[in-house]
C-alpha cells in the first residue's frame, strides 16, 4: 500500500549542526500524524523540508510516489500539498474573501491566457463562501484580513490551504495561542478534513491536542526519531518521557 | 613598472577613501536595513565644514573634530526625524526620504557656499615618503595613515568593546537585542554617529586629496557606495572595505593605466551585477 507521504532517511545539517538526522516515517491518506518533540528536536526543520522551505542534506521525500524534496513551494502547492504557517501570514490588505479566491486560482496562474482573465466570478465567489462557511468565517468575508484576531486568522490559514483541495495538509502549530473554545472548534474542523480523505501532518507543542487528534505520533529528540506509534503507546514510552522531562522525570514516572 | 606601482598605490588610496565612506553606509544598513543614500550628503557636508573651520582656525585637527561633530548631529537628526518613524513602512519609503535628503542637503550646500569648486589647501602633518622608485606625496600618506587608523578603530570598537558587541547584536536581530536589555535606540544613534564621523573624515580627506570641494561631490559616491555594499555583502563592514579597495584599484588600473574605454563610474555597477550573478550574498556576506 503506497503511502501518501513517505520520508526516508531525511537529514538536515546546518554546518556542524545536525538538526535532523536520518528520520523516516510514513503518512496514510485520511489519517493524522502528529510530529512532536521537545524544543530544538528538529520538528520544525523536518516540517520545513517537507513543505519545501529547506532542501534536505540527504534522504528523500516521496509524495504520492513522486520525489518532492527540493521542489519550490509553489510546485508543492500544485502537487496538492497545502500548509499553514506558525506565524500567520494573511494577505493583509486583501479581503477575507479575496484571500480564499487567491488560493482558488491555482490552476489559472499556470495558464498562459487564463491568467489574464478576470477573477472573482460568481462561481468562484460561491465556492469561496462555502469554504469560509466550513471554517465559520463567512460573516467576515468582506473584512480586510489584516484586521482579524489570531483565532480567526488561524482558521483563515486553514481555509486558504483547503482551497487548494490538498491531498496533504501540513499544519504548523496551528493551535498555538488559541483559547479553549477555539481549540475545540479547530479540532473538530481538522477531524472533518481528515474524514474527507486528506492526510494531515501536524506539529504541535500542545500535547493534549497532538495526542487527542493524531492517529499516530512520531517523536523527535535532538534530530532523531525516538518513538513512533499510537498516541497511548508513545505517551508511555520511557524514552519519550525522558526526552520531555529529563532522566529524573522518567525515573519518577516509572 | 614605476607607473604601474604609482597607479597601484593611487588605486589603493582611492579604495581606502571609498572604504571610509562605504563602511559608514554598511554600518547603518547592518543595523536598520535602510539604504542611507543621504550618507553621501553627510560626506559632502563634512568636507565643507572641515574646509570652513580650517580656513577660519587654521588647524586641521580642529576642523576634523568640528566636522565630525556637525556630521554626527545631522546624521542622528536624520535617523530620529526621518528614518526611525518610517521603519514600519516598505523599504522604498525611507529610501525615497533618503534621496530627498541627499538632494536637499546638496542644494543647501550649493545655496550656502556657491556652486563653484572650492580649493582645500591644507598643509598636512605628514612627510613625503620615498618607496623605492615611487614618491608618495604627503596627501597620499595622509590617506593611508588616516584610513588605517579609522579602520583599526572600527575593528577595535566592534570586536573588543561592549559597545561593539551591542552593535553586532543589534544588527543581527534588533528586537531580540532590545529584549536582551540593550538600549537599541542609543545603539542606533551611536551607529549613526560613528558612520557620519567616518563620512566627515572621508570628506575632508577627499577635499584635500583632490583639492576640490563642491556641492555635488556626493552624487557619484552615493550610488557607487550602494553597489559596493552589495558587492561586499550587505551589512558586512569588512566586505565593504574589501570591495572598496578592489574597486579603487580596478578603476584606477583599468581606466587610468590600461586605458580601457569604459565609463569609470559604471564599473562599480557592472562589478556588482557580476558578483550578484556568481555569489548573491556578496564577497563576505552571511548566508
Amino acid at each position: 500500500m503506497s503511502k501518501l507521504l513517505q520520508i526516508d532517511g531525511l537529514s538536515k545539517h546546518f554546518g556542524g549542526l545536525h538538526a535532523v538526522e536520518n528520520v523516516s516515517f510514513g503518512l496514510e491518506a485520511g489519517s493524522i500524524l502528529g510530529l512532536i518533540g521537545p524544543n530544538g528536536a528538529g520538528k520544525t526543520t523536518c516540517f520545513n523540508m517537507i513543505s519545501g522551505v529547506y532542501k534536505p542534506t540527504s534522504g528523500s521525500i516521496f509524495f504520492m510516489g513522486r520525489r518532492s524534496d527540493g521542489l519550490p513551494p509553489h510546485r508543492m502547492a500544485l502537487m496538492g500539498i497545502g500548509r499553514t504557517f506558525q506565524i500567520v501570514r494573511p494577505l493583509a490588505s486583501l479581503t477575507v474573501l479575496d484571500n480564499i479566491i487567491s488560493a482558488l486560482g491555482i490552476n489559472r496562474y499556470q495558464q498562459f491566457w487564463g491568467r489574464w482573465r478576470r477573477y472573482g466570478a460568481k462561481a468562484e465567489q460561491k465556492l469561496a463562501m462555502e469554504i469560509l462557511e466550513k471554517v465559520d468565517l463567512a460573516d467576515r468575508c468582506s473584512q480586510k484580513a489584516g484586521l482579524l484576531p489570531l483565532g480567526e486568522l488561524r482558521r483563515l490559514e486553514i481555509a486558504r490551504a483547503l482551497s487548494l483541495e490538498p491531498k496533504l495538509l501540513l499544519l504548523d502549530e496551528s493551535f498555538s495561542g488559541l483559547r479553549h473554545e477555539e481549540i475545540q472548534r479547530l479540532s473538530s474542523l481538522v477531524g472533518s478534513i481528515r474524514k474527507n480523505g486528506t492526510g494531515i501532518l501536524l506539529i504541535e507543542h500542545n500535547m493534549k491536542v497532538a495526542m487527542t487528534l493524531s492517529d499516530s505520533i512520531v517523536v523527535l529528540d535532538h534530530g532523531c526519531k525516538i518513538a513512533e506509534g499510537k498516541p497511548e503507546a508513545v505517551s508511555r514510552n520511557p524514552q519519550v518521557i525522558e526526552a520531555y522531562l529529563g532522566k529524573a522525570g522518567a525515573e519518577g514516572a516509572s | 613598472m614605476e607607473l604601474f606601482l604609482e597607479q597601484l598605490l593611487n588605486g589603493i588610496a582611492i579604495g581606502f577613501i571609498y572604504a571610509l565612506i562605504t563602511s559608514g553606509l554598511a554600518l547603518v544598513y547592518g543595523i536598520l536595513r535602510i539604504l542611507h543614500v543621504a550618507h553621501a550628503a553627510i560626506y559632502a557636508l563634512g568636507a565643507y565644514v572641515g574646509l570652513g573651520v580650517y580656513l577660519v582656525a587654521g588647524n586641521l585637527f580642529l576642523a576634523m573634530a568640528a566636522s565630525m561633530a556637525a556630521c554626527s548631529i545631522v546624521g542622528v537628526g536624520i535617523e530620529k526625524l526621518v528614518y526611525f518613524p518610517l521603519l514600519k513602512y516598505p523599504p522604498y519609503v525611507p529610501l525615497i526620504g533618503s534621496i530627498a535628503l541627499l538632494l536637499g542637503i546638496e542644494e543647501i550646500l550649493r545655496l550656502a557656499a556657491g556652486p563653484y569648486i572650492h580649493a582645500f589647501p591644507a598643509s598636512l602633518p605628514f612627510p613625503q615618503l620615498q618607496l623605492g622608485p615611487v614618491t608618495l606625496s604627503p596627501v597620499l600618506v595622509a590617506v593611508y595613515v588616516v584610513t588605517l587608523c579609522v579602520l583599526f578603530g572600527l575593528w577595535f570598537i566592534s570586536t573588543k568593546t561592549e559597545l561593539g558587541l551591542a552593535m553586532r547584536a543589534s544588527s543581527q536581530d534588533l528586537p531580540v537585542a532590545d529584549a536582551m536589555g540593550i538600549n537599541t535606540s542609543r545603539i542606533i544613534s551611536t551607529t549613526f554617529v560613528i558612520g557620519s564621523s567616518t563620512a566627515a573624515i572621508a570628506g575632508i580627506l577627499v577635499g584635500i586629496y583632490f583639492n576640490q570641494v563642491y556641492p555635488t561631490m556626493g552624487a557619484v559616491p552615493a550610488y557607487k557606495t550602494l553597489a559596493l555594499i552589495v558587492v561586499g555583502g550587505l551589512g558586512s563592514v569588512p566586505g565593504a572595505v574589501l570591495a572598496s579597495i578592489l574597486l579603487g584599484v580596478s578603476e584606477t588600473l583599468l581606466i587610468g593605466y590600461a586605458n580601457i574605454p569604459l565609463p569609470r563610474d559604471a564599473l562599480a555597477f557592472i562589478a556588482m551585477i557580476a558578483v550578484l550573478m556568481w555569489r548573491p550574498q556578496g564577497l563576505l556576506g552571511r548566508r
Partner: protein
Amino acid sequence: MGNYVLTLGIFIAINGIVACGLNIIVGYAGQISLGHAAFFGIGAYTAALLATKAGFTFWMSLPFVILVTGAVGLLLGLPSLRVREDFLAITTIGINFIVESLFMYVPFFGGALGIGGIPRIVFFGIKLREGGFLTLSLVLLVVSLGCTWWFSRSWSGLACFALREDETAASSIGISPVMFKLVAFMAGTAMAGVGGGLYAHYMRFISATDFGFPVSVMMLSMVVVGGIGTLWGPVLGAIILTVLPEIFRPLTDYRILLYAALLLMMIRFQPGGLLGEGSWSRTLLSRIFRGGVSR
C-alpha cells in the same frame, strides 16, 4: 500661452503613462524599481532609431517599442527579481546607470550627441502638433489606465497582490514568485517604453542624459506622491510633479530645494500617497462626502 499649457499637458500625459507602468511594478507587485527611466529611454531610443535609420512611422514602430522594452525587461528582470528586496533597489539603480552609459558611449546610439531629427507623428496625413499630440498622448494614457485596471482585475493582478502582501504565503498557494514578478515587471517596462516612444517623437531629439537616475527618482516620486498601488495615483502624481517645477520656476534658485523638501514631507508624513489608504485627502474627502470614499 496656449501652446505652453498644451506642452505641459503632453508631459503630464507621457509621465502619467510611464508612472502607470511603474505603479504596476512597485504598487501592484511590490517590487522596488529605481531604474524605470532606463526603460523609458529604451523605448525612446527604439522609436528614434527605427524612425531615423529605418524610416518607420510611429505607428509602425509602436509594436516594436513594446516588444523591445518588454524583452529587455524580461532579460534584466530575470536575474534581478531573484535577489532579495534590498538588492533589487540597488540592482535597478545599477541597470539605470549601465543603460545610460550604453546610450552615452556606444556610437550606434549617437553617443553623447544623442539622436536628432526624429520626425513628427503623422495621423492620416496630418502632422500632429501640440493639440493633436496632446490628444494622442491622452488617448494612450487612457489606454494605459485601462490596461492597469484590467491587470488589477485579472488573476495575474491578484497573484501580484498576493506576492506583495506576503511572498511566502503566496507561493504556498501556487503562485510562482519569479513568474509573476516578471509579468508585472514586463508590463511596467512595456508601458514605460510607450511613453518613451511618445517622448522621442515629441522632443524630436533625445540624448542619454534624458534618462538618467534622477528621472527614475522623479517617476517613483510621482507614484508615491499620488498613491502607490492605486489606479489614479500615478496620474495625480504625474500632474503634481510635472506642474510643480513649473510653479517653482520663478524661484529658480530654490526650485530643487523646494522639490526635495516637498518630497521629504510627503514621504515622511503620507507614505501612502495622496490617494492611499488613510491619507489626509481621503479622510477629508470622505468627511465631505459622508458616505465614504470608494477607490
